[in-house]
C-alpha cells in the first residue's frame, strides 16, 4: 500500500481527528482570506480616492529654511515663474488647480501685511473645474478683513502700494487667520512692486496626481519623484487630505488585524499540534507494528507530515472559499465605502496552498518526531 493510501484510509477511519484538524486550518485560512480580501478592497478604494481627490501640494524652492517657512508661512527663497508652466505642460502629472504665488511680509501704511501675488489658475487641458483660488485682474487688489477695517477701505477705493496704484476690487470677510492681514494682487503686479520680476516663492497644486496605471504604485512617492525630475530646485510639501487620513487608518487597521491573525494562527497551530499528539498516542501500536515490519523512521514521519500537508491543502482551499464568501457577504456591511471593491483575491489561494501545508507540517512536527522516537518494543508489549 502506498503512503498516500495509508494516510487517506487513516483519515477516513479517524474522522473526528481529521475533521477537527481540518476545522482549525479552515478557520485560520478563512479569517486570513476574509480579512485580506476586505483589506485589499479598502486599499484599492484608497488608491482610487487618492486618484480622484489627488494630493494638495505646496511646491517651494529647494533651499527654503523650513523652520522659517513654518514661522512666516512662506519661503524667503524664490524660484523662476517658468516652473509653473513647465509643470503645467508636463503630461505625466494631472492636477485640478495649479497656481504660482509670490508672497512677502511687508510694512505698508505702518502695519505688517502679507502681500500676495497670485497668477491666474492653470488647469489640465479639457478639465473644466471652476477656479478654487480666486482670479485677480491686474491693477486690482483683494483686501483682508483687518486691513480693510483698520484703513476703512471699501470696494472701488484706490490705494498706493510702494508707488503703484491699485483699485480695491473686494474687501474680504473675516477669516480668523493670517489672511485677514493679507493683500492679494495679480502675481505680475506683486513681482513688479517687490522688484522680483519672473520670480515666485510657491506653486500651489491642488488635487495633483500622477498618471500611473499601476494601482499598486505608491502614488505620492511617484509624484514626488516626477516633480523632482521636472523641478530639481523645488521641494514638495503635502497638505494632508481625507485620502491620506484614510490610508493611515487602513494601515492602522491592518496592523491591528495582523496581530489578531497571528494570534489565531498560533492558536490553530497549537490546536492541530495537540490533535496530532493525540493521534500519535492512539496509533502507538500501529506505529510499533509498522516498525516491526521494517518501516523506517522517515516513513513513519512521512505518514504524519503527509497527513498534515494534505489537511493543509484541503484547509487552504476550503478556507479560501469560506473566507471569500464571508468577505463578500459581510464585507460590504462592515466596509460600506469599499463594498463594491470587494472581489475574490485568487492570489490568496495560491499563497494559501503553499503556506497552509507548511503551517500544518510545522504544527505536527513535534508529534511526528514523538512517533518516530517511540520504542516499538515497548508499544508491542503493551496490552
Amino acid at each position, binding site marked *: *500500500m502506498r503512503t498516500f493510501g495509508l494516510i487517506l484510509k*487513516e483519515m477516513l477511519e479517524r474522522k473526528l481527528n481529521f475533521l477537527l484538524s481540518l476545522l482549525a486550518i479552515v478557520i485560520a485560512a478563512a479569517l486570513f482570506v476574509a480579512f485580506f480580501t476586505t483589506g485589499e478592497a479598502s486599499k484599492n478604494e484608497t488608491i482610487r480616492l487618492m486618484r480622484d481627490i489627488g494630493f494638495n501640494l505646496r511646491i517651494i524652492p529647494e533651499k527654503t529654511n523650513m523652520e522659517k517657512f513654518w514661522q512666516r508661512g512662506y519661503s524667503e527663497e524664490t524660484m523662476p515663474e517658468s516652473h509653473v508652466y513647465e509643470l503645467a505642460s508636463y503630461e505625466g502629472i494631472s492636477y485640478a488647480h495649479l497656481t504660482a504665488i509670490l508672497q512677502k511680509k511687508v510694512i505698508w501704511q505702518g502695519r505688517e501685511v502679507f502681500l500676495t501675488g497670485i497668477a491666474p489658475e492653470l488647469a489640465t487641458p479639457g478639465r473644466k473645474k471652476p477656479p478654487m483660488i480666486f482670479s485677480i485682474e491686474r491693477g486690482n487688489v483683494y483686501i483682508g478683513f483687518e486691513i480693510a477695517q483698520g484703513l476703512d477701505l471699501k470696494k472701488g477705493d484706490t490705494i498706493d502700494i510702494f508707488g503703484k496704484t491699485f483699485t480695491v476690487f473686494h474687501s474680504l470677510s473675516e477669516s480668523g487667520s493670517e489672511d485677514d492681514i493679507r493683500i492679494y494682487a495679480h502675481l505680475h503686479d506683486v513681482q513688479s512692486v517687490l522688484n522680483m520680476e519672473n520670480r515666485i516663492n510657491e506653486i500651489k497644486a491642488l488635487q495633483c496626481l500622477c498618471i500611473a496605471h499601476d494601482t499598486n504604485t505608491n502614488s505620492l512617492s511617484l509624484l514626488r519623484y516626477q516633480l523632482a525630475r521636472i523641478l530639481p530646485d523645488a521641494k514638495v510639501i503635502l497638505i494632508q487630505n481625507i485620502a491620506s487620513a484614510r490610508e493611515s487608518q487602513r494601515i492602522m487597521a491592518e496592523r491591528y488585524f495582523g496581530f489578531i491573525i497571528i494570534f489565531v494562527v498560533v492558536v490553530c497551530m497549537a490546536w492541530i499540534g495537540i490533535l496530532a499528539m493525540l493521534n500519535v498516542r492512539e496509533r502507538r501500536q500501529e506505529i510499533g507494528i509498522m516498525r516491526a515490519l*521494517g518501516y523506517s523512521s522517515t516513513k513513519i514521519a512521512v505518514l504524519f507530515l503527509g497527513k498534515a500537508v494534505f489537511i493543509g491543502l484541503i484547509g487552504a482551499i476550503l478556507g479560501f472559499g469560506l473566507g471569500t464568501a464571508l468577505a463578500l457577504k459581510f464585507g460590504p456591511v462592515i466596509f460600506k465605502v469599499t463594498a463594491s471593491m470587494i472581489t475574490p483575491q485568487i492570489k490568496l489561494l495560491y499563497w494559501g496552498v503553499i503556506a497552509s501545508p507548511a503551517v500544518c507540517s510545522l504544527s505536527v512536527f513535534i508529534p511526528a518526531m514523538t512517533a518516530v522516537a517511540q520504542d516499538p518494543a515497548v508499544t508491542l508489549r503493551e496490552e
Partner: protein
Amino acid sequence: MIMVRLERASKFYRTKHGDVKALDEVNLQFNEGEFAVVRGPSGSGKTTLLLSIGGMLRPTKGQVFINNSDIYTMSERERVAFRAENVGFVFQLFHLVPYLNVIDNVLLPAGVGGSRYSQEEAKDLLNRLDLTERIYHKPAELSAGEKQRTAVARALLKRPRIILADEPTGNLDPENAEEIIRHLAEYHSKGGTVIVVTHGKAADRYASRVVHLKKGHIDSA
C-alpha cells in the same frame, strides 16, 4: 547451520524500584529450519528474547547474531532493512492496522517492500488461510482466529527467513490455536525457521526443540 545466536545477552529494564533483569547472560542458538518453542512463566523474559532476536530491542549487554551478523552493530537503517527482508512477526494481540481491510493489512509490508508483493500473492495466501471471504473486512469485523490468521498471512507474505511468534495462540480457542500453529508448521516444513514464545502446549508436537526460560535464564534447552 546456525540461524540465530545469542551470546551473553542481557536486558535490564530500569524501573522506579530498581533494575529488572529480563534476560541475564543468555547464551542460546537456533538452527536454520528449526521450529523452536520458548516456554516460561510470565515475566521470564520470553518476549524480550523474541524482540531482541527480531532486532527490535537492543540488549543491555551481549550480542545477537543472525546468519553470523551482529544485528546491533548495524545502523538503524540497515537493521530496519534487515528486519523488513528477513523477519516476520506474529503477536498475541494481532496488531492489525484497524483502518485497513484484511488484504491491505496483509500487504502492509509492501509499503517498504514495494511491488515485490502483489495482490495476487496476498489473495493466494489468504485463500490458503481460509480468509477469502473476509478479504475486504476490517479487523473489527473479524473473529480472533481470523485476525490471527491475517497476522500470520502478513508475516508470511514477505517469505521471511525466520518467523518470531509471541504468544500467537494466547487469545484463541483450542481449535483456532491449532490452526495457527498448523500454518506456522507448514511454513516450517518449507524450510522456514520458526520461534514461538508461548505458555501453551499447542506447538509442542511440531517443535523440534523446547527452550525453558525462567527469570531471564535458560532453564533447559
